[in-house]
């Protein structure tokens, strides 16, 4: 997927750069983009490492299994293969809980762990891993922190959009779940 996206977007940018005379800007974007990727990785290293550590400690002392038990009805409904393994159920529940809180890059370690444990469960697990990745492209967040920070700089009632965002993202997630089910059914 990424390979094809990379090839198509580079080809499209090269052609349109020539048409619109933006060749210099695009060439600069190559250098600036690769530097930006490293800056991004470095800047998120701290929180990703810390959260990986916290996750492991919470695992060892049983907090994640409690979260897993509480969220299991929802998780098993959306990802049926999580019924097969307790580990997968806990990992996916944790990922869902963390992503729901809207803590940005801190959600990467738990998300990656959920992907790993789902994709190790054979065919049905892989299908659920694809669904998890798709759903993560439009996450339901209680409090989208970066967005609210930007909005607070411009208006006093920054939070008035939150109910609309919740309605919209919940509806989108339900649509996404159904869509993934249908695609899985058709592709098999």
């Amino acid at each position, binding site marked *: *997927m990424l390979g094809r996206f990379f090839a198509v977007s580079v080809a499209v940018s090269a052609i349109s750069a020539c048409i619109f005379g933006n060749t210099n800007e695009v060439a600069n974007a190559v250098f600036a983009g690769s530097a930006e*990727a490293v800056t991004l990785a470095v800047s998120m290293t701290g929180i990703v490492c810390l959260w990986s550590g916290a996750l492991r400690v919470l695992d060892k002392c049983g907090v994640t299994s409690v979260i897993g038990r509480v969220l299991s009805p929802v998780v098993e409904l959306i990802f049926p293969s999580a019924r097969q393994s307790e580990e997968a159920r806990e990992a996916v529940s944790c990922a869902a809980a963390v992503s729901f809180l809207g803590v940005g890059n801190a959600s990467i370690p738990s998300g990656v762990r959920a992907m790993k444990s789902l994709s190790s469960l054979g065919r049905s697990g892989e299908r659920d891993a*694809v669904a998890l990745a798709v759903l993560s492209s439009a996450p339901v967040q209680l409090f989208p922190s970066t967005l609210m920070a930007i909005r607070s700089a411009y208006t006093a009632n920054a939070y008035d959009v939150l109910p609309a965002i919740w309605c919209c993202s919940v509806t989108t997630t339900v649509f996404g779940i159904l869509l993934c089910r249908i695609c899985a059914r058709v592709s098999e």
Partner: protein
Amino acid sequence: MTAVGGYAVLAVMAAVSLAVLLSGDGMFSELISGVRSGISLIFRLLPTFIIVIVSTRMLLASGAVDVFSRAFSALFKHFGIPGEVTPIIFVRPISSSGAFSLLSALYENSGADGFSARLATVIVGSCDAMIFSLSLYFSSVGIKKTRYALPCAFLMFGFCVAVSVIICNMFFG
């Protein structure tokens, strides 16, 4: 990171410190080795970051995105999407930082409490930079056959935009 997010972060830190305090050195070395595993995770993700960010920055700089948004803005107006929101719709799936800077510009130019500012906020807030998050999750576990993931994510995004328009008209119209 205010309100609930802040409390959640504090609760996690408190739980971790309590666990280390109660069970001693064993738990602390678990914490350290967990933190260390984060470094290898970042190393594994870095190549994906470079590829995704370079290709999306090239797309943005080439003017291709502007052409698409100009071509579609007349069509989108029929569905009640103001012209100044259209560029944000096209940038959102490929770049979070790009969408955020367009959003700040929109707040700056037409105020943060207008209909188009609110619509843009709802669109940006209810989906993520899909190319980035899909690549991140798939490359982290080495899945190469992503099957229907990208088309599904695109359809979901289109659905999200449509629902945002409906909901914003109901809430703020």
